Every structure is written in structure tokens, then in C-alpha cells.
């Protein structure tokens, strides 16, 4: 129910009441049944009231500050006024009800929405501390009013919240929030570049509010930041700045668009547009000799004019001076001898002569030309006092590349520009389609065609164009009056028409650009808006307004998106902004919170977990029996009550019933709380929800089943496959371990370790000794608490062996191979590409998890998931700074911090670090006799294999390529061993070289590089190759940082529990035994009268696979099933002549498609 005006007025302070009266008057004039917010805004804006009454200035002020700087204030205000006019027009008129409500028509009552706004502002004002005193004053002054008297400012703010109002503002290119901000904030002196006010254009001088704007604080350049003028302005400004300098004062523009910048500057000077220039340069003149320079080379009589022209120049040059534009340097560079012999010295002379009053300016599209010029005339840049000025801004309108999309705001521009035209020439249909892109000739033609199209089109709507009102306004009126009945039809027609007109324009634009490129572009008339904004489809703007059927909200909203979405920069519809900000606050803010929450919980979790585990572990330890929980629980006084509670429940299942089923745990809560001391019960029940959350964050971890609802059950076992079974298993495992940890069981532990690894016995015994020693807990304290974590460093070669040891430890101590966190810290440094055999297993897992994380966070994340595990860190000497820091802290404090400072307990982990670089100190048994070095095996890549057949003669000719050392030894030995000759050749296929080069050129794979090194130096001692590597890597590191790293490694290694040296793996022995196996198979299948030559790459591949595989059997199976079968097939398919060498080579362009079972070798070998 609408509110009577008088009662609404009671709520308002005097200014606001006056505004309301104005609004009521507007509503009455338009015979609207109600006074709405729209009326109020319109009243505040309308020029008639604003000129007299001060209150309206609040909104106007705010608008002038909030408006987009892209458009002139006058246009935007006019647009705003028109938008509100149109919006009001669309309101239903009360004429039909007039007879019923004649009395009310005198003073249309206040609509509900406006009344709601008033109420809102009332409430706001009451709350607002700034206006609180006002409210109190009012209360004291006149106690007769029950409510607060609303100030105009508050009222305006409230009205702006009205969706109808904000929509209309949006249509006019204003953003609601900007206006509000401007209303709230007093005008600030905003830093802007001085830009002198220009005379308002004549065609808008009848705009009544012009006076108001002159008083506004905002400097009002009549500019459009995105039109050519402004990018150019910026460049001109910079040129002017150079000109104003004392030294290096002659600008030399370089850049793709330097020519345009020079043109812009010339135009600015020509038009005496001094805004862009420093004040002392006003009155500057510009003389261009570009054409003359470019013609210099062609015509012979160049010399004559140069002197004369420059002479003349000297006389002309008066204050402040003349800029001599020599144009494109290309002309100078390509010009004939005249340039060098005459122009250049002449210019130098003149410049010298008129030092204060003559500037020189040139440009070049590319620096190459500039450089060429300088190389041709060295030191000329000094003589000519050049200042290089990079020009990087392409004029937006150039080539129509970034012409602005059409928008409603734009449609006001032609409206402004063409206002007089429509007055003068009625029915000049083509005039709405002006364009500056075309030359005059083409433009005329285009106009004709457009006119023809328009005439050919249906006539009914066209008449209206000729009216003396801006056509679109009229049309809007018409449509709103007609109720938009035929709007859709007309719209369809118009769309078609539009497309046609656009096509025509485009066609002529293109045509013009092709043909008349050199022509002067059509100069815009004095009353037209400068710049290239004018070339807009006029009809489209019109259509948009005519579409605005008030009943069709969706349509208008679409329009908002289309029309205003495109205008710039105050572009985006208000609703959109609101929506965006809302969803922003909704979607973004909770996330960090969650993150924090989780992280906090995790910290807490890890603390409690860790503690429990210490207890738990010690419970498993040799010295603890299940009876003395209390002793172990005593350190818990350090931790919080919460931890105590958790511990209590932990003990509950472990001591009462070890086989407790998980279902029981869910019901266990009550009994738990029951068995606790009564004073803690409250705490406990209060803590339960939090603990529940913990379990959630916990169950985000890997395999924890959802049904594991007992929150306290989760914490000790997050890494287990879940539930009771794992728990049981763990108990069993731990009981086993109790025995093993007993010193007397050292032998069995060591034996099972050796059994799993199969080599490195010495190292393994050292490892097992250390572990047992540590687990026994001798003097292992960190501060007051026990140190549960074990730190081992494996030095030396046999990287695969180290990994195997780590896997074996995980299996023996923690029960599963999965309890291993394996990270190669050098992985990030050298991306191995393509993947070598030895890397294959690891990269698969690492790669995906690694992305987006630092290594530290990766390690920390894994640790939080499986705190009971072996942490295997390869190449710790290559660790980055973050990892170094975290590791140092971890070994000192027992907590591993991630990059965010969160700490993860490690007291149940075994850290195994490996390093290869540091091997020198502990390891020195290398001889020259090593045929296969570990590096070459590590670098072996998994290629497909194939078998080639060659005649001996051919093979013999290749013999020089064959690695003598290996081949001869192998040859002789195998000759002796069997009749057939099986030898390893080092011959490479042509492909491989290319391939390698490709990789090197890509700068990839240090590894690949190394590979080639070691190949070449296979005969040399391995140390030398290593030396090279060390050199290259140290040179690639900053000396200081690498020193830092070395120092850290030294420090760190001194703190670990044990350093274990590994022995090199004897690849030669392995090779021998494999060769024996292969030769046996070769003998069996092919026969003794043939020779088998195995490419060294293939051999390395086989060795790598054998090194990796757990059991030798897999390789034997491969030889038997794949290799022998290939030999048999070879024999059957080809009739082998005697004196044949069978070569087994790698196809270095083909990776293995399918692996043989159990070993990383191809499942079949190609025959050729």
C-alpha cells in the first residue's frame, strides 16, 4: 500500500523533503500513480531543479566523481538524464485510473520501494556513528517526531540500493558502488596529469548544467582514453619531455609504431595542442624534411636544396624553436652518397649553429635500422645529441585492430556529433554512419550504397528518423507507447538491416585501405567528435533502447550485458559486479579459513599423534611391558588436557582388548568418558566435536575407510589401510619387532636385510647395527624427550642398491614396502628427458604429486600421511635451500617444518639420505678395468631392440669403431669359452647422434650430456669423467651458494646417526655372466659359425634392467623367452650365410612399447 506523501515527508530532513517534493512534482507532471525512487533520482538530477536548489549537488557531485573517465562528463550526464527519462516513460501512467483517484493525482503517494528506501536510510542513520549526534540533536530540538529525520545523503545512498535505480545507472555507464563511494567520501584532490580545460564544444553549449561542471574538481579533458588521441598523447608527452631537456634533447623514436608517434606529434604541434607539451615549448614549430631526404638518393640535385633549406630554417628558427623532423631513418640509411657526403655534415653544422632553438627528431620502426644507421655514421648519436625513445604502444585504432566494440554509450557520441546535422537535413539517413576510416571518395560511395539499402528496406520505420528529436529517443517513446507490440518485428528487420549496413561499411573500409592508403583520411568536421569512435553502427544503439520494453526484464538485462558490457571502462553491469563480489566473498574467504583450520588441526593432530606414538612405540620396545603405561604417560603432563584425553582413549583399546572390533569403537565413547576421572568429563565432552574434526582432516588422508567413525582410532593409524585389521597387523608386527630389536637378534635382522637386498653386506651390517642401537634407546635424547627418529646417510655408488636397502628397511621395520617416502632431491634440478630405465619406476609416482609443491611441502605432506615410514631422500647434497633448512631443523628438534611453518613429527621415521657427490671422501677403490660404469648404466634409456645381419667383411670394416678394449677382451674370452663370438660393440647408429644433438641444443637433460661424455671416455678412468661433471656443475652454481650447500652437507652429515659407505656394484661381473648366458642361448639357437655383436647400448640396457630387477631369474627368463625366440625366428626367416655377424642394436628413435614381465626390457625384438 503506497504511503501518503505527507507521512513520508515527516521522516525526512528539510533537504531530503525538498527533494521528495521535487520528485512528487515530477510524478504528478507525468501523471504517474505513485512517486518512486526513479522520480526522486530524476528530480535530483534534472537540470531545472539543480540550477536553483543546492541539495541536488550531492548526487551530481558524486556522479561527476564516479563517472567513467572514458567519456566526457556532458555526454555521460546527458545520457544519464535520458536514461532516466526513458525509464520514467516506461512506468505505467495513471491516466486510466484518473477518474478514480483524481484527488491523489494531485500528490502521487510514495511507492513501497521508495518508502522502504526511506526506512532503510532511517535505520542506517540511527546506526551510523557519524550522524548519531545529528539524530540526537533532532530529538532534542523537536521531540514530536518519533523517527529519525533522514538526511539527503543517507536517502541517496538508500535509493541507490533500489535495483530499478541501479539498473538505470548501469545503463548510463555508472557503477552503483562507485557512486556510493563518491557520495560517502568528500572529493579528494586526485593526482592527475595537468590537462588544460578546453572550451566545451559548441553543440552542447545549451546544456543547462554546464555551469555546475565548471566548479567540479575533476579536470575535464574532452578525451577518450582508448581513442587514438590518448595513446598518442602519451607518446607526445614523452617526446615533449625529451625536447625540454638540456642534454640528449633530440628524440629518436624506435619501435613498431614509432612512425605513428611521430605523426601524432606532428599533428599535435600543427594543431597547436599544447597540453601535451611542457609550457616552455609552446609555440613550437615543426618542419619535416622527410620527403626530401627520401628523394635525396633518387634525384641528383639534392645538394642544392639542402643548403638552401637549412639556411632558410636557420632564419625561421625563433623562440621557442623549430623541430626538424628527418623522418624514417630508413631513408637516410638507404639514401645515396648524398646523405653521407652532404646531408649529414650539413645537419650537424646547422644543429651546432642553432643549438638552442633547433631540435631534430627521427624515427625508426626497428632497431636494426637504427643500428645500421649508427654503424654507418658512428658517433653521430652523440653529435646529434640523440635521446633514444622506445615507442611500444600501438595505436588502438590502427587497422581497426582494436577498435572498440559498439555500445550504447558510443551511440551517444554520434548523437552529439550529429545533432545539428539532423536538424539541418531532414531524412539524411546515411549520416548516422559516418566513418573516419575511409577517404572522402570511398566514404561517399559507401554512403550511397548504405542509403540504397536503407531505401530498399521497408519504409514504415524510416520516417521517424527524420524527426527533429534524436531518433532513438523518439523511437523509444513510440515503442513504449505502443506497448512494444511491433518491437520484435521491427527489431528483426533492423537486425538484418544492421548487418547489411555493417557489411557495406566493412567492405568499403577494406577497399579504401587497399586502394587509397596514401590518401588523407576524411577530416572530421569541427562539430564532430574527433577520433575514430564515430564509425559505429548507429542503428544498433537505437535498437537496444527500443528493445527496452519495460515488461521484459530479461531482455533488458541481456542488453546490459551486451551493450554496457562493451562500453569501457565503467563497463560491467551492476548486478554482475554485485554477483561477482558476493560469490567472491562466499567462495574465496571460506577456503583460507578452512585451510587454516585444517592446518591448525593438523598441527595439533601431529602433536598428539606423535606423542601417542612415542608411547605406543615404547610400549613395543624391548624394555617396556604392557603394564607400565602410567610411567610412559607421565611425560604427558607437558601436553594439554586434550592430549591426555586422547591418550586415555588410546590406552583403552590397547590394554583392555587388543582384538577390539572397529564397530565397538564407535560405541566406545561413553565408556571411555566413564573411565576417565570425573572432573575431566566436561572437558572431554566439550572437546569431542573438535576431535571429530580432527578425524575428518585425518580421513582426507589416503585409505582410511569412512566407516571408521571412532575419532580417536584414526589418529594412531592414519597411514594404515584402515580399521581394526591393520591395527592388529601392526600389533603383530610390533611384537615381532620386539624380538628382533633385541640385541641378540641382530644377526637375524641383518640376515633378513641381506636376504632382501642381496648385496652390500658390509653396509647392511652397519645399517642394522645402527638401527638396533638406536631402537634400543641408548642415550638417545633430544632435550628431555626421547629421540625416536633415526638418521642414516648412504654414501657411495650403487644408487639402486641404496634404494633397495630403504625398501627392505620399510618392509622389515614398518611391515610394508609402501611405508616408504621416496624423493629425489635433484629431480627438480636436472629434468631427465627422456626418462632413463633407472628413473622409470620413480618418476611415474613423483611427477604428478610434485606439481605445484615445493619439495619440502611434498615431504611434509607425505610425512603427515605416513609418519611410520622410511624417508628416502636421494641426492641430499643437491637439496634446495628450503629442504636444507627443514632437514636441519628436523634433525635438531624432531619436527619437520614445511614451507608454511607447520611442523610434522618425525619421531617414528627413519631418514635415509643418499649422496653421490660426497662419495670421494670415503671411497677410493676404482680401477681402470671398469668397463661399465654406474653413470653409463644410470643413463641407459629403454629403447626398442632390433637384430641386424651383416657380413663379416662389412663388420670388419667397422671394426675401428668398435671399442677395442671391450670388444677384444670379450672377443677373445668368448672365443675361448665358446666357438661363437659374442662381443659388445660401441658402434652408434647415425640416428643417435642427431638425436643427441637435438637434445643438447634444447638445453635439456644434463644426463644426456653426461651420457655422451662417458661414451666418449669409456676407455678413460671414470674419475676423469666425473671430474668433468663436477666441474660443470660447480661452475653452473653460484660459487657462494654452492659453498653454502657444501658447508651445510658437511654440517648435516656430522649430525646423522650413521654414515654408511656403499661399494660399487660390479657391473662387469654381471655383464660377464649375462654374456655367458646369452652366448649359450646363441650357440643353442643359431650356431657356432656365426658371430653375435651386442651394441654397448643394448648391453647397458640389459645391465640396468638386471640391476633394477629383484631377482636374476627374471632376466634369465627374458633371455630364454625373448632373445632366444628372436634368434630362432631369425634363423627360420633368413637363410644365414656363413661369415655373418648378427648384431643386436638399439633403435634409438623408438621407446619400448611393451615390457617383458618382471624386467624393464622389451617384450619382443624387431628383426630386420
Amino acid at each position, binding site marked *: 500500500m503506497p504511503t501518503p506523501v505527507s507521512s513520508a515527508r515527516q521522516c525526512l530532513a528539510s533537504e531530503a523533503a525538498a527533494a521528495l517534493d521535487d520528485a512528487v512534482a515530477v510524478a504528478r507532471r507525468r501523471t504517474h500513480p505513485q512517486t518512486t525512487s526513479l522520480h526522486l533520482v530524476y528530480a535530483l538530477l534534472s537540470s531545472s531543479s539543480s540550477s536553483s536548489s543546492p541539495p541536488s549537488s550531492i548526487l551530481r557531485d558524486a556522479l561527476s566523481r564516479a563517472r567513467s*573517465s*572514458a567519456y566526457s562528463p556532458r555526454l555521460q550526464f546527458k545520457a544519464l538524464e535520458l536514461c532516466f527519462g526513458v525509464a520514467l516513460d516506461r512506468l505505467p501512467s495513471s491516466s486510466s485510473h484518473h477518474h478514480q483517484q483524481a484527488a491523489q493525482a494531485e500528490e502521487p503517494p510514495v511507492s513501497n520501494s521508495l518508502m522502504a528506501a526511506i526506512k532503510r536510510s532511517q535505520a542506517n542513520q540511527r546506526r551510523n556513528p557519524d550522524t548519531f549526534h545529528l539524530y540526537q540533536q533532532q530529538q532534542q530540538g523537536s521531540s514530536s517526531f518519533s523517527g529519525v529525520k533522514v538526511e539527503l545523503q543517507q536517502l541517496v545512498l538508500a535509493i541507490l540500493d533500489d535495483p530499478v535505480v541501479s539498473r538505470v545507472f548501469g545503463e548510463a555507464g555508472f557503477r552503483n558502488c562507485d557512486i556510493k563511494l563518491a557520495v560517502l567520501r568528500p572529493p*579528494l584532490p*586526485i593526482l*592527475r*596529469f595537468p590537462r588544460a580545460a578546453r572550451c566545451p564544444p559548441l553543440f552542447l553549449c545549451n546544456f543547462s548544467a554546464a555551469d555546475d561542471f565548471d566548479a567540479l574538481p575533476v579536470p575535464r579533458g574532452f*578525451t577518450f*582514453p582508448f581513442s587514438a588521441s*590518448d*595513446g598518442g*598523447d*602519451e607518446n607526445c608527452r*614523452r617526446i615533449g*619531455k625529451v625536447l625540454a*631537456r638540456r642534454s640528449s634533447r633530440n628524440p629518436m623514436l*624506435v*619501435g613498431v609504431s*614509432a612512425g605513428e608517434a611521430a605523426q601524432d606529434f606532428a599533428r599535435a604541434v600543427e594543431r597547436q595542442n599544447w597540453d601535451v607539451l611542457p609550457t616552455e615549448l609552446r609555440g613550437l614549430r615543426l618542419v619535416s624534411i622527410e620527403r626530401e631526404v627520401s628523394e635525396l638518393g633518387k634525384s641528383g640535385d639534392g645538394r642544392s636544396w639542402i643548403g638552401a633549406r637549412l639556411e632558410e630554417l636557420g632564419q625561421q628558427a625563433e623562440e621557442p624553436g623549430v623541430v626538424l623532423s628527418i623522418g624514417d631513418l630508413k631513408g637516410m640509411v638507404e639514401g645515396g652518397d648524398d646523405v653521407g657526403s652532404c646531408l649529414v655534415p650539413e645537419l650537424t653544422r646547422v644543429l651546432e649553429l642553432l643549438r638552442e632553438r633547433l631540435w631534430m627528431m627521427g624515427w625508426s620502426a626497428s*632497431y636494426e635500422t637504427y*643500428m645500421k644507421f649508427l654503424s654507418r655514421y658512428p658517433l653521430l648519436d652523440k653529435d646529434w645529441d640523440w*635521446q*633514444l625513445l*622506445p*615507442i*611500444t*604502444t600501438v595505436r*588502438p585504432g590502427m587497422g581497426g*585492430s*582494436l577498435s572498440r566494440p559498439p555500445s550504447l554509450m558510443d551511440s551517444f557520441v554520434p548523437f552529439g556529433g550529429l545533432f545539428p546535422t539532423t536538424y539541418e537535413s531532414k531524412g539524411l539517413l546515411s549520416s548516422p554512419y559516418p566513418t573516419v576510416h575511409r577517404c572522402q571518395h570511398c566514404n561517399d560511395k559507401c554512403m550511397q550504397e548504405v542509403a540504397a539499402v536503407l531505401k530498399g528496406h521497408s519504409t514504415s520505420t524510416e520516417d521517424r528518423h527524420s524527426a527533429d528529436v534524436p531518433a532513438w529517443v523518439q523511437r523509444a517513446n513510440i515503442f513504449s507507447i505502443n506497448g512494444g507490440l511491433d518491437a520484435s518485428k521491427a527489431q528483426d528487420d533492423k537486425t538484418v538491416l544492421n548487418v547489411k549496413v555493417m557489411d557495406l561499411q566493412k567492405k568499403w573500409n577494406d577497399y579504401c585501405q587497399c586502394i587509397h592508403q596514401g590518401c588523407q583520411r576524411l577530416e572530421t568536421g569541427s562539430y564532430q567528435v574527433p577520433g575514430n569512435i564515430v564509425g559505429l553502427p548507429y542503428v544498433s544503439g537505437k535498437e537496444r533502447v527500443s528493445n527496452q520494453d519495460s515488461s521484459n526484464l530479461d531482455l533488458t538485462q541481456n542488453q546490459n*550485458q551486451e551493450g554496457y*558490457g562493451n562500453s*569501457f*571502462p*565503467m*563497463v*560491467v553491469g551492476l548486478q*554482475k*559486479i554485485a554477483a*561477482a563480489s558476493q560469490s*567472491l566473498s562466499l567462495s*574465496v574467504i571460506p577456503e583460507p579459513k578452512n585451510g587454516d583450520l585444517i592446518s591448525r588441526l593438523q598441527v595439533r593432530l601431529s602433536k598428539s599423534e606423535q606423542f601417542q606414538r612415542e608411547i605406543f612405540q615404547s610400549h613395543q620396545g624391548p624394555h617396556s611391558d604392557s603394564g607400565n603405561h602410567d610411567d610412559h604417560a607421565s611425560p604427558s603432563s607437558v601436553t594439554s588436557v586434550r592430549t591426555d584425553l586422547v591418550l586415555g582413549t588410546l590406552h583403552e583399546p590397547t590394554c583392555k582388548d587388543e582384538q577390539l572390533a572397529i564397530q565397538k569403537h564407535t560405541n566406545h565413547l561413553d565408556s571411555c568418558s566413564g573411565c576417565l576421572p570425573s572432573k575431566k568429563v566436561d572437558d572431554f565432552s566439550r572437546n569431542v566435536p573438535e576431535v571429530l574434526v580432527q578425524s575428518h582432516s585425518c580421513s582426507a588422508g589416503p585409505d582410511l575407510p569412512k566407516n571408521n567413525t571412532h575419532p580417536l582410532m584414526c589418529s594412531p593409524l592414519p597411514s594404515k589401510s584402515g580399521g581394526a585389521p591393520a591395527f592388529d597387523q601392526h600389533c603383530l608386527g610390533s611384537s615381532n619387532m620386539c624380538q628382533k630389536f633385541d640385541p641378540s637378534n641382530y644377526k637375524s635382522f641383518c640376515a633378513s636385510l641381506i636376504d632382501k637386498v642381496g648385496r652390500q653386506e658390509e653396509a647392511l651390517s652397519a645399517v642394522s647395527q645402527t638401527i638396533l642401537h638406536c631402537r634400543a634407546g641408548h642415550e638417545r635424547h633430544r632435550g628431555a624427550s626421547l629421540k625416536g627418529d633415526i638418521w642414516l646417510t648412504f654414501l657411495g655408488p650403487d644408487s639402486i642398491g641404496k634404494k633397495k636397502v630403504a625398501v627392505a628397511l620399510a618392509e622389515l621395520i614398518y611391515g610394508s614396502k609402501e611405508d616408504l617416502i621416496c624423493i629425489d632431491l635433484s629431480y*627438480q634440478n636436472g*629434468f631427465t*628427458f627422456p626418462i632413463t630405465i633407472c628413473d622409470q619406476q620413480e618418476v611415474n609416482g613423483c*611427477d604428478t604429486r610434485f*606439481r*605445484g*609443491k*615445493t619439495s619440502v611441502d*611434498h615431504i611434509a605432506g607425505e610425512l603427515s600421511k605416513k609418519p611410520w615410514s622410511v624417508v628416502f631422500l636421494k641426492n641430499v647434497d643437491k637439496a*634446495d*635451500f*628450503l629442504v636444507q633448512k627443514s632437514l636441519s631443523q628436523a634433525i635438531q628438534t624432531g619436527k619437520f617444518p614445511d614451507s608454511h611453518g607447520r611442523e610434522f613429527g618425525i619421531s617414528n621415521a627413519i631418514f635415509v639420505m643418499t649422496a653421490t657427490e660426497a662419495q670421494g671422501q670415503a671411497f677410493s677403490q676404482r680401477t681402470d678395468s671398469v668397463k661399465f660404469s654406474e653413470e653409463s648404466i644410470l643413463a641407459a634409456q629403454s629403447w626398442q631392440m632390433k637384430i641386424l645381419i651383416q657380413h663379416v667383411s662389412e663388420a670388419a670394416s667397422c671394426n675401428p669403431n668398435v671399442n677395442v678394449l671391450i670388444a677384444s677382451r670379450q672377443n677373445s674370452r668368448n672365443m675361448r669359452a665358446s666357438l661363437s663370438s659374442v662381443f659388445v660393440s660401441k658402434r652408434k647408429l647415425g640416428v643417435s647422434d642427431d638425436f643427441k644433438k637435438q637434445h643438447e641444443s*634444447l*638445453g*635439456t637433460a644434463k644426463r644426456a650430456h653426461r651420457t655422451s661424455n662417458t661414451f666418449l671416455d669409456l676407455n678413460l678412468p671414470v674419475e676423469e669423467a666425473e671430474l668433468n661433471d663436477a666441474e660443470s656443475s660447480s661452475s653452473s*652454481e*653460484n*660459487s657462494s651458494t654452492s659453498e*653454502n650447500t657444501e658447508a651445510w652437507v658437511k654440517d648435516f652429515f656430522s649430525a646423522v646417526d650413521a654414515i654408511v659407505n656403499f661399494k660399487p656394484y660390479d657391473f662387469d661381473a654381471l655383464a660377464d655372466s649375462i654374456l655367458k648366458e646369452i652366448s649359450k642361448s646363441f650357440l643353442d639357437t643359431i650356431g657356432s659359425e656365426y658371430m653375435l655383436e651386442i651394441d654397448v647400448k643394448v648391453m647397458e640396457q640389459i645391465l640396468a634392467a638386471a640391476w633394477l630387477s629383484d631377482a636374476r631369474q627374471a632376466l634369465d627368463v627374458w633371455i630364454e623367452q625373448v632373445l632366444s625366440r628372436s634368434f630362432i625366428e631369425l634363423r627360420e626367416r633368413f637363410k644365414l650365410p656363413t661369415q655373418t655377424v648378427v648384431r643386436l642394436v638399439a633403435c634409438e628413435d623408438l621407446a619400448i612399447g611393451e615390457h617383458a614381465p618382471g624386467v624393464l626390457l622389451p617384450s619382443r625384438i624387431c628383426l630386420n
Partner: protein
Amino acid sequence: MGGSNSNWSSGGATGSKLLEMLNVRVVGNVDRPAPALVLSHGIGTDQSAWNRIVPYFERDYRIVLYDLVCAGSVNPDHFDFRRYVTLDAYVDDLLAILDALRIDRCFFVGHSVSAMIGILAAIRRPDAFLKLILIGASPRFLNDENYHGGFEEGEIETVFAAMESNYEAWVRGFAPLAVGADVPEAVREFSRTLFNMRPDITLFVSRTVFNSDLRGVLGLVRVPCVIVQTAKDVSVPPSVAGYLKAHLGGRTTTELLHHTEGHLPHLSAPAALAPVIRRSLSR
């Protein structure tokens, strides 16, 4: 080739005010006398984008972090639509910051638009820069005759239109695309900073960037540069890295991050990028 002082003074703000305005922070080994390491972010992010890179250099470098004036973390009032029409204004800012901090020599790591800014700054003041490390850099985003910048004019307009019509939706779509790799945290982070920017500023700066063409001036760079290119970058095709390498005037090397994709390796693969930067700094 100085002139930055006069440029900035015309803007009217003093150095200290600028430092405050652009949230300049100096972290890491502040006392180290050696050249500073300036990290400059690209469009759509702010200095927080370097959060995961900074720890790698904290010990050994004095690190300067700042926000471009268009960043969401800078008060939008400071963004003068008349001043920041070309990249030169951003260059003025950068040089003014260096002056205010009395940094006479620095390493500059610039991402995307900041790479362009770094190039221009190094042209203007070659002595101030020891090395430019350019991540996801492009001298020109639009295609041209004999040049593949990766974008067609039409495409750009479509993108802008999408941005204008629904910024939120655009961000939601664009962020994963730009990040490239399947790293939800990075997408989330990038979306956040992208949202923080006022849409009209985003659009304005994007236009400024797409209107910029540095191809003509690359040869004027005398400072050694390192171009860091990921395996796949929606904004910068690999050919652009080649173009940069061929045309940049100084000693230029290219670093290819094989296992990393996307336009924002410092968000999506900091562990891979940091060693590359470190290597580049010391070489």
C-alpha cells in the same frame, strides 16, 4: 638514458609515498650488499604470487617485492586511467622504486607484463639491471605478418567481451587455462588475485598490454636475459621465446621447463622454477 626522475615527479608522488602505495617490501638477506633481486608479478596476480619462490632466495639475496599499480592489492584510486595508458608509466614506477630504495644494480625477475616492463626499464637504464629473467614473456601478443604472437585480433575482442559481460565467469574459466597444469592450489590462488582486481582495471591493463609492441626495441636491450619458457603456455607460443632470443640485444639464454605447463610456473611449479632462477642468476 635517465629521465625517470622527471617522469615520476610529474606524477607528483614522492618515492616514499610510492613505496607505500605499491606495497613495496624488502625481504630476505636485507643487509647483503650484493645486487638486489627484484620480483615483479604479472597481470592477474600480485606480489603474493612469489610467495613460494621467495624462500629459495631468502638466505642469499635481498629481495624486493612490489605490486604493479593494477594489482588487486593496490588501492584502485591510485590507478590513473590517464597515466597508465602505456607501459612506460609502469616502467617509471619500477625505476622510481629502485631510486627510492637506493638500489643501483639489481637482478630483475619479471612475469608476463612485468617481463615487458623489465625490458623497457633495461633499455632506459641499462646500468641498473644486471640480468633480466623473463618468465612467460612476449614482445607482442597479437599475430602479425611473419610473427606468431598467439592471439588473433578477433580472439582478443572475444576475450574482452567475455571479460566485460561476466568477469566472474571469465575468471573461473580463464584461471585454469592460464595455470595450465592440474594444480588446484595454483588455480585457486590465481583466481583469488584475479578477482581482487577491479574488472575495469583488468580490462584496461589488458588492452594496454595488447596494444603494446616491443618488437621494434628488443635490440636495444644490452642486459643479459634469460627466457624461461614452460612446455605449454596458453599466452605465449614457443616460437615467441625463439623470437625473443633472436632479437634481444644482450646475451640471451633460454630455459625450457619440460615438465611444467602453463603461464604461471611460479604458482604451479615453484620447485621447478626456483632452481632455474637460481641457476640463471649465477650464470
